[in-house]
């Protein structure tokens, strides 16, 4: 469903993403991991057509991302890094926007929207403007927008961060359920415990390069220790003045 060959993105002299080659099959839940600034969001933007690559090839659902972007957008659902919400629309109006633009009829949009709002605990905030929503509500709205058109591939940028434990569990269950029906899920995350629970494929990148691409079944447990070994080990420096009397 997702196929990358030698995907590269440069910003001036800086190479943010360097020759990435990987594949994600239908029904997989692929976790794309790496430290801050490793190139995860840049890669995700290139996969969804938000950013043109400097080199390499990307195909999603068999379509070239650059030349057939409108067709591709009709077949994918995305939770972008900045959530992609308009301050001047309410939660329910955002779902209605997606239904209208993706050509769903009003009744289907309303029914699917109500189900998603109920499932994600957003019913009480359906008439709240995005500008007045908490970060968690905004993230859930964007997640619901990604699911509403029933896409073939889901791209999610840090979906579990800033989400309460109950909603996180609901989201995990939803993702496992859609993957079981053949939808490919590609997500970035720093929450390794959640990754361990749902991912079927793991890709780790560091400084724009893949350091590990494997099936989750082959992951040595715990993932955190392996992550520290492969990506970076934490160095804890003693900061003496912290906690001492204020000066």
């Amino acid at each position, binding site marked *: 469903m997702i196929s990358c060959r030698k995907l590269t993105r440069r910003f001036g002299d800086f190479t943010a993403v360097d020759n990435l080659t990987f594949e994600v099959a239908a029904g997989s839940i692929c976790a794309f991991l790496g430290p801050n600034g490793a190139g995860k969001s840049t890669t995700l933007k290139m996969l969804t057509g938000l950013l*043109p690559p400097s080199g390499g090839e990307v195909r999603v659902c068999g379509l070239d991302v*650059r030349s057939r972007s409108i*067709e591709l*957008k*009709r077949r994918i659902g*995305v939770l972008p890094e900045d959530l992609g*919400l308009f*301050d*001047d*629309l309410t939660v329910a109006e955002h779902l209605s926007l997606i239904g209208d633009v993706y050509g769903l009829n009003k009744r289907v949009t309303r029914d699917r929207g109500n189900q998603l709002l109920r499932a994600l605990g957003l019913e009480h905030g359906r008439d709240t403007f995005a500008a007045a929503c908490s970060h968690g509500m905004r993230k859930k709205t964007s997640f619901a927008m990604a699911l509403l058109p029933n896409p073939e591939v889901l791209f999610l940028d840090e979906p579990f961060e800033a989400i309460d434990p109950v909603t996180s569990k609901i989201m995990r269950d939803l993702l496992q359920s859609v993957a079981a029906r053949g939808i490919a899920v590609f997500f970035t995350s720093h929450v390794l415990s959640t990754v361990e629970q749902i991912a079927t494929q793991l890709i780790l990148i560091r400084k724009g390069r893949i350091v590990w691409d494997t099936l989750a079944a082959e992951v040595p447990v715990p993932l955190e220790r392996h992550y520290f070994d492969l990506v970076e080990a934490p160095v804890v420096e003693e900061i003496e003045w912290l906690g001492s009397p204020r000066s």
Partner: protein
Amino acid sequence: MARVAAVLSALSRALRRGQKSVWSVAGNNFFIVSAVVMQDAGVFIYLLIGVVILFPLSTDPLRKIPASRLRLLPLTGRDLCILRAASPWVNPMTWAIAALAIWAARGKVTVGLWGLAAGMVAAGLALSSLGIAPGYGLWRHLPGFPGPLNQLVRKNLRQMLSTLDLCCALLLSAAAIAFRLTMRALPPDAILILTVLVVLALSSYAGALFGLDGAGGRSRYALLPVSGWQLLAAKDAAFLLIVVPLTLPLAPLAGLSAALVALAMGRNKAVNAPREQLRWRFSTGAGSLEDVVGGLVQAAVMIMAAASVYLSSPLFVAPCIAAWAGSLWWFGRSVDRVFRSGRMPD
């Protein structure tokens, strides 16, 4: 005071680094034309409306600090008041405009008017400090529109309704209606001029169409399976839905022509040089000399279009529609390119 000085120093540094922001004085086309064309009457308008309301609300460097961060700083209420009043003055443009206003108004403005001006400054500062969120009040209940762009048109309308450009146009339109209801009929020339002024007050927004969408909104545009021309059409629909009712009691066809021209001429700036727009501010029409000249040219063509339709023949609306449609197609392709390239406004 040390804390306030530290914040002002940081603001000044931030302004110096962002060279563009030093010149970022939002100037609505209405004020530019008033100041340049209206001469003596323009002095009054320029001083009382253009300067007094415009600069406290539009050169505001305090916007460089996120409101949430400002609230977290250990500043007292008194500190915040001082900061609010002093921050516009770290922008050298504020000093330049104030000097220009005093020079232009010398001997023509009474003490009472200066007092009124001071009151308006205070009201302007208070309004900008309120941070009114979008979608409050009546705007929540806007009707739906037909077609798949329904929610986008609704959103665009709410955005336009939260700019000061609309207040300015509304004031002019309401004054014209009041005059027509209470006095004798307006002379035909006055109807044309008032129509043009109403559209002029709104025309700067045509060059800042994406300014209130924010980074999140722009990335959503890039993700939606719609073409660039459709996104522009949704913006235009909202613009025309405001212009047409406001010019209805004046010369609606002339107003429509001027609005179509304003949209066509504002496209390049709106799409290829988009800027962030703040709510309850005037649209950023005059950020540079180039913008001032562009605003004047836009205004001149709008006036010609409206005058042709009003004074010669309604058929002159046809070339205005053609220019608007051509710009929709051409810049629609630019929108596609801009959103796919990941370019974002400053």
